[in-house]
C-alpha cells in the first residue's frame, strides 16, 4: 500500500514510466481482443519482433550515414519511423498474400518471427551503442520515458482508442462474420485495412516504449483472461482493458519494490492471474462431477 501511494504521487520520479505502462496496459488489450478473435495470435508475437528489427535497422542506418543520434526526441523519432515502416510494410504484404489465399499464414508468420529476430541480433551486433539501446527494449526495462515520448504515446493510443470505440461494430462484424458483413454491403477490405493499421500503430508505438515481450504480453494475456470471465465482445474488451491497467499498476509497484525489471514483472503477473483464473474454473467444473461420484 505504501509503495502504491508512493508511485501514485504526482511528483514520483518514475511517474512517466508508470503512466506509459498504464496507457499501453489499457489500449493494447483492446487491440489484442481482435487479434485473438481473428485467430491471429502468432501475428501478435511476430509483429513486435518485426517492429524491433525496424528500430534496429533505423538506428544502424542513421549511425552509418549521420553518426549516432542524441538521446533525445530525434532518437525516438528515428526509432518510430523504422518501427512503423517495417511493421506497416509487413502487414500490407501479409494482407495481400492472405487475400490471394497463397500458402499458409501461420507458416509465413512463424518464418517472419525467426527472420526478424535473427535480423535484429545481426543488426545490433554490428554497432555497440545500438546494441545497448535494443537490449534495454528486449529486457522490457521501462524506467525513463521523456515527456515528449509520453505525449506521442498518449496521442497515438488516444487515436487508437477513438477508432476502436467509434467503429467497434464494424470491426466486430468483419471479425466475427465476414460473409455477413459483405451481405450487408460493408467494404470488408477497407475495414480490414483500418484494423491492420490500428494493430500496426499499436505495436510500433508500444514496442518503442516497453519492448516486444511486454507488448506481446499486454496484447494477448489480458484478453485471454477476460475471454474466460466475460461474455460478448464489448464486455470482453472492457474487462481486458481493466485487467491490463490493473496489471500495469500492480506490476509496476511490485517491480519498484522488488527492484525487478518492470516489463517482465507485468507479464509474469498477467500470466499468474491467467493461471489462477484457469485453475478456479477447472475446480468449478470438476467439483460437481466429483460430488456426484
Amino acid at each position, binding site marked *: 500500500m505504501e509503495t502504491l501511494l508512493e508511485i501514485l504521487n504526482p511528483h514520483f520520479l518514475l511517474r512517466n514510466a508508470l503512466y506509459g505502462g498504464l496507457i499501453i496496459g489499457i489500449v493494447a488489450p483492446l487491440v489484442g*481482443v481482435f487479434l*485473438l*478473435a*481473428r*485467430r491471429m495470435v502468432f501475428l501478435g508475437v511476430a509483429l513486435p519482433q518485426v517492429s524491433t528489427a525496424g528500430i534496429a535497422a533505423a538506428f544502424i542506418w542513421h549511425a552509418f550515414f549521420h553518426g549516432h543520434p542524441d538521446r533525445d526526441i530525434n532518437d525516438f523519432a528515428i526509432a518510430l519511423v523504422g518501427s512503423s515502416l517495417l511493421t506497416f510494410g509487413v502487414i500490407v504484404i501479409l494482407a495481400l498474400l492472405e487475400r490471394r*489465399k497463397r500458402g499458409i499464414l501461420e507458416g509465413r508468420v512463424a518464418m517472419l518471427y525467426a527472420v526478424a529476430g535473427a535480423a535484429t541480433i545481426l543488426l545490433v551486433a554490428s554497432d555497440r551503442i545500438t546494441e545497448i539501446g535494443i537490449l534495454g527494449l528486449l529486457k522490457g526495462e521501462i524506467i525513463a520515458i521523456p515527456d515528449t515520448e509520453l505525449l506521442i504515446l498518449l496521442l497515438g493510443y488516444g487515436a487508437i482508442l477513438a477508432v476502436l470505440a*467509434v*467503429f467497434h*461494430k*464494424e470491426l*466486430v*462484424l468483419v*471479425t*466475427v*462474420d*465476414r*460473409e*455477413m*458483413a*459483405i*451481405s*450487408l*454491403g*460493408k467494404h470488408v477490405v477497407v475495414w480490414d485495412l483500418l484494423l491492420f493499421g490500428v494493430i500496426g500503430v499499436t505495436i510500433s508505438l508500444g514496442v518503442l516504449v516497453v519492448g516486444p515481450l511486454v507488448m506481446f504480453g499486454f496484447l494477448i494475456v489480458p484478453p485471454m483472461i477476460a*475471454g474466460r470471465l466475460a*461474455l*460478448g*465482445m*464489448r464486455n*470482453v474488451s472492457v474487462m481486458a482493458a481493466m485487467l491490463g491497467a490493473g496489471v500495469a499498476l500492480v506490476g509496476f509497484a511490485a517491480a519498484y519494490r522488488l527492484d525487478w525489471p518492470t516489463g517482465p514483472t507485468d507479464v509474469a503477473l498477467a500470466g499468474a492471474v491467467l493461471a489462477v483464473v484457469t485453475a478456479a474454473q477447472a475446480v468449478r467444473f470438476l467439483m460437481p462431477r466429483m460430488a456426484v461420484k
Partner: protein
Amino acid sequence: MADALISFRDVALGYDSVPVLEGLTLDVHLGDFLALVGPNGCGKSTILKGMVGILEPLRGNIGRGMGERPVRFGYVPQRETIEMVFPLTVFEVALMGTYGRVGPGRFVAHAERERVRACLGDVGLADLQRKPFPALSGGQRQRVLIARALAAEPDLLLLDEPLSGIDLRAAQTIMELITKLHRNRGLTTVMVSHHLKALRECEAVQEVMWVYEGKLLRGPAATMLAPDIVFRMMDAEIG
C-alpha cells in the same frame, strides 16, 4: 425482367480464378420461393454466394437491385462460418443484422434494438437473448441466424443449408418458420438444401432448381421433386 431482384446473365463463378460453374443464367423475382438442390459439391452454396456478392462473377453479369435501391439481403450462412473465439450473446449476434442500416460510427438506436428483440420473438427465442450463442442447440442457433437476417429488414432471404446438422424436430420447426415468413410477409426466399423430404413437405416452396453437372434445371417444386427426377439426379450423384 423488370421485377427481378437478382439476375444472372451468362455468369461464371469460382474460386481463385478457377470457375466451378459457367454459363449460369437465372432470375429471382419478388415473392419467389426458390430451393436450390443437388449433389454435394455441385455448387449450390457457390450460387448463393454469387447472389449475395460474397463471390463476384469471373465472367458475365450479376444484377442485384430493385430500381434505384440495392437489394437488402437477409443472409443466413452455414453456422460454421461464424468465428466464436469470444462467445457472443444471442442478442449480440442478432443485433448484427442492423449494422447494414446503421452507418459507420453511429450507435444502434433503442428502436433498432427493440426491433431485434421482436425478431428474436418471431423465431421463438425472446427469452434466450442473454444466453451465449455457442451454448444453444443447432436448431436454436439456426433460428438466431434467421432472426439476425430478419433484423436486416431484407428484400430477399437467403438460407445456406439451414437444416444441416440438426435433428428432425428442429428441422421441422425451422421449415415452419420459413414458411410462415414467406406467407405472412411475402418475403422472397432462396434456400440451399439437400433435405428433399423437407422441401417436398413445405407448401411455400414454389420452384426448385437442380444444380447438376454445372447446369441448372428449374421447374415447379412438384415436378422437380417428383421421384423420377430425384432418382435421375441421385443416380448421377452415385454414378
